[in-house]
């Protein structure tokens, strides 16, 4: 087999045993790797209606056919599980050397089930699995864990291990805890908490197996072209500033949410802009392994430390919480990384709490001084969430669950979809994105589709809803599903002239199986149908595809988008157009015929 190993490693933490199992070629052709393979395995390995933080919930790592081929931006892996935050699928990506090592271990997937009795970490090589005690690692950050694991190796060979680990938040089952490796995070959906529930602190990998590609020359040719294109104008933003470049322009467009989505614009947008960070506090450029774009930026904090910062982190811990000081954002980001907290959900949950405090709905919290813009109180609350201390214990459940304890008013401004806090794209002024956020299988997500791309294209009116958006969102989700299953970084997405045709050529060259553009389009649709089927099995209801009341009741009241609103009727119209584009019925259910049509 080319491009794939054709097998997975199933590890049972309860019995401390493992087996290798074959994966049929037909399955790999159908769903590729990454998110696609992860979704397929999740459907098989998760018992229906499994409790996310129970031993039975499988934790699935998947590699992908392009990993290890040297193609730019492909050093990635997916972690898939049932999310403790949403109760639906969690499919997160992370990248770099851990991803390359996963492929070298000689499997296309790791499926981890059961739970250990004592804190454990897994040492996995192509020869097998060791279940090692991790008591000494508890409480450490992911980065310190990785260093300690490497420090305590038993052989020289082991010194080369690559480690993905959770921090304190994962150990304490915070529902939006991350899994981290080499400063990268599988951030959304709480995979870190699933680790914690299994008493699994880390996975350390070391392998020697290589996968051959079917047509080395063809792959090399495509690799050269992609490398060249990857440094063209389409990626200039990522190469020269990083994603933090979004903040100032989103603010200008009335699309930067602030103060828990209470309004736009943000008075201190210039001070927090990526342009200012680059000019005043730039420290280092980093990139994932085998990437020619290198979008990561580290900025210097006042304490002298270099902190990685992405737009979503900047938005969530800055304007969303009313924080105006660049250094306070860097400190908050540092804490989240240290504890292993998803920055978007952390910022979203704290912003919700700050509004509760402001409105007098949570007097104890108000007594701690929590309010929008109070950096000190917010930093303290981040630590409390990670430790599940005081109010942090409730906030560790995420804004949706926490809001149920405070009543209907507080639920109305918990800015989440399916339990996942919203990213930094204001849905009222980005109508296609509004639909994308409402229907995304993993909750309010800006990664598993790029629905906002339509709003920024000039092809649609971003301020007006219409029935054309369903097809756009479905197409964007399918495109992302293929990217996330090959895997190719989404920041390379605009470097293709004809993505599906070029990806088909690439997959044929790597695997030796004949792919056409139409095949890959169908793969995208199949993967999204599979995610939907999983969610349906886990109890999805039509009301889960919806947006928080605030977005549907309160028009934007200032800035260039003053008066712009999103009504329930508009959202309903777009959702129906999405179901129609997907070939699902009006309730969003997938019929047998549709399943057959996409080969499920």
């Amino acid at each position, binding site marked *: 087999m080319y491009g794939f190993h054709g097998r997975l490693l199933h590890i049972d933490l309860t019995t401390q045993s493992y087996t290798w199992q074959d994966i049929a070629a037909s399955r790999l052709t159908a769903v590729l790797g990454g998110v696609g393979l992860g979704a397929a395995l999740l459907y098989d390995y998760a018992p229906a209606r499994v409790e996310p933080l129970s031993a039975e919930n499988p934790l699935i790592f998947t590699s992908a056919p392009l990993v290890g081929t040297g193609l730019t931006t492909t050093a990635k892996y997916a972690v898939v599980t049932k999310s403790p935050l949403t109760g639906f699928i969690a499919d997160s990506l992370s990248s770099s050397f851990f991803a390359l090592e996963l492929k070298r271990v000689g499997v296309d997937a790791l499926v981890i089930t059961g739970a250990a009795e004592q804190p454990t970490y897994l040492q996995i090589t192509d020869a097998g699995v060791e279940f090692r005690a991790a008591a000494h690692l508890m409480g450490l950050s992911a980065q310190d864990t990785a260093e300690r694991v490497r420090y305590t190796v038993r052989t020289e060979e082991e010194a080369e291990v690559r480690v993905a680990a959770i921090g304190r938040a994962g150990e304490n089952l915070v529902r939006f805890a991350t899994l981290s490796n080499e400063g990268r995070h599988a951030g959304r959906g709480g995979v870190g908490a699933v680790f914690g529930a299994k008493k699994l602190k880390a996975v350390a990998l070391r392998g020697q197996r290589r996968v051959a590609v079917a047509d080395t020359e063809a792959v090399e040719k495509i690799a050269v072209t992609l490398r060249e294109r990857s440094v063209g104008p*389409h990626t200039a933003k990522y190469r*020269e500033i990083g994603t933090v470049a979004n903040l*100032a322009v989103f603010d200008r467009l009335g699309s930067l949410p602030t103060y828990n989505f209470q309004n736009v614009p943000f008075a201190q947008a210039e001070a927090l802009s990526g342009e200012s960070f680059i000019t005043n506090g730039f420290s280092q450029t980093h990139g994932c392994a085998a990437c020619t774009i290198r979008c990561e930026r580290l900025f210097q904090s006042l304490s002298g430390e270099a902190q990685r910062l*992405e737009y979503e982190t900047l938005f969530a811990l800055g304007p969303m919480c009313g924080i105006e000081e660049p250094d306070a954002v860097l400190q908050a980001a540092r804490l989240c990384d240290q504890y292993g907290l998803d920055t978007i959900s952390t910022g979203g949950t704290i912003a919700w709490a700050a509004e509760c405090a402001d409105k007098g709905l949570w007097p104890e919290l108000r007594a701690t001084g929590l309010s929008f813009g109070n950096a000190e109180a917010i930093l303290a609350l981040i630590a409390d969430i990670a430790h599940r201390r005081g109010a942090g214990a409730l906030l560790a459940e995420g804004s949706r669950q926490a809001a149920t304890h405070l009543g209907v008013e507080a639920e109305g401004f918990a800015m989440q979809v399916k339990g996942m806090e919203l990213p930094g794209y204001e849905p009222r002024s980005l109508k296609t994105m509004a639909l994308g956020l409402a229907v995304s299988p993993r909750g309010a997500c800006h990664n598993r589709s790029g629905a906002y*791309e339509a709003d920024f294209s000039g092809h649609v009116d971003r301020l007006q809803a219409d029935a054309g958006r369903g097809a756009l969102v479905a197409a964007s989700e399918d495109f992302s599903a293929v990217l996330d299953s090959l895997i190719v970084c989404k920041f390379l997405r605009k470097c293709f002239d004809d993505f599906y045709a070029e990806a088909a050529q690439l997959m044929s060259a790597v695997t030796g199986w004949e792919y056409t553009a139409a095949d890959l389009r169908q793969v995208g649709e199949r993967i999204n149908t599979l995610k939907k089927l999983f969610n349906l099995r886990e109890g999805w209801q039509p009301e889960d595809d919806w947006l928080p009341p605030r977005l549907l009741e309160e028009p934007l009241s200032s800035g*260039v*988008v003053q008066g712009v609103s999103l009504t329930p009727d508009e959202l309903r119209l777009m959702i129906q157009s999405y179901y129609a584009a997907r070939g699902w019925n009006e309730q969003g259910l997938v019929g047998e015929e549709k399943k057959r049509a996409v080969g499920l």
Partner: protein
Amino acid sequence: MDTQASTQSPALSAVILSGGKSSRMGRPKALLPFDDKPLIAHLVERLSQRFSDIVVVAAPDQTLPSLPVTLVHDAVAHQGPVGGIYYGLRAIRGPAAFVTSCDAPFLQLPLIDYLVSQLTHNGRGYDVVVPVWQDRLQPLHAVYRRRVIPHLQEQLATQRLRPVYLYDTVPTRTVPAAEIKRFDPEGLSFLNMNTQEDYQAALAHWRTLSAPISCTVELFGVARLTAHTPRVPLTLAAEATLGDALTVLGVACPALLGSVLSADDTGYTSLRNGYACNINGKDFVRDAHTRLRAGDSLLILSSDAGG
């Protein structure tokens, strides 16, 4: 673009020729009133938005109102445009000058900016930039380097009084109508007056013509870092389009050319792939023919909004 636009460095000069015969008009064209002010005063006012050094070349015995200019007189009267250009260039302080006659009421600054920028084109330097409008060279709406003075002197000495002889001798960039139309679609810049009827028509047009419009370009991300400024004010011809604005922006901020903007052979400028434009923070625009209105803000941003 406003007075601090980068194309005016090093400072260039302007020359207004006011010494020509006005026989058919019956009175000095420079003094024809527009809005109760002599035309030459309007010209000086407009050109001073761009040029700090303005030279007016008058006939030996001509009297003019007091103006903030360097006034010189033709030593020999009526030697045609070559004589006027010669005496004007001798008096300028900068290395080159935009030269116009005194009877052109509708000068368009964006076009003048563009002509000045064409002293270097496709990596080549030129001594003269002369537009062609309605198939005719327009020597009295052109840019000349000071170093052509000896050639003009020689022409005067040999009585070869047609400017075209100069163009055949020194490196000359002729700017075709297609390029001019980007800045001045109707060629108003080249409208001049020889008769009373011409004057009356110009007056009527003067009254109806809307003023040039001011717009602001707001730069984000890579564009801002490249241009080293978040904002570029532009003065555009009335009725200017997005394409016109980008062309003028390329002239104002040459650093953006190649990375954010790309100019074709004619100088017409568009956004490179990877960049998008939004007007006033509301509508994303793709069509270069989109009309702009006074006060519009043009946002230039990355077309990839991924984060």
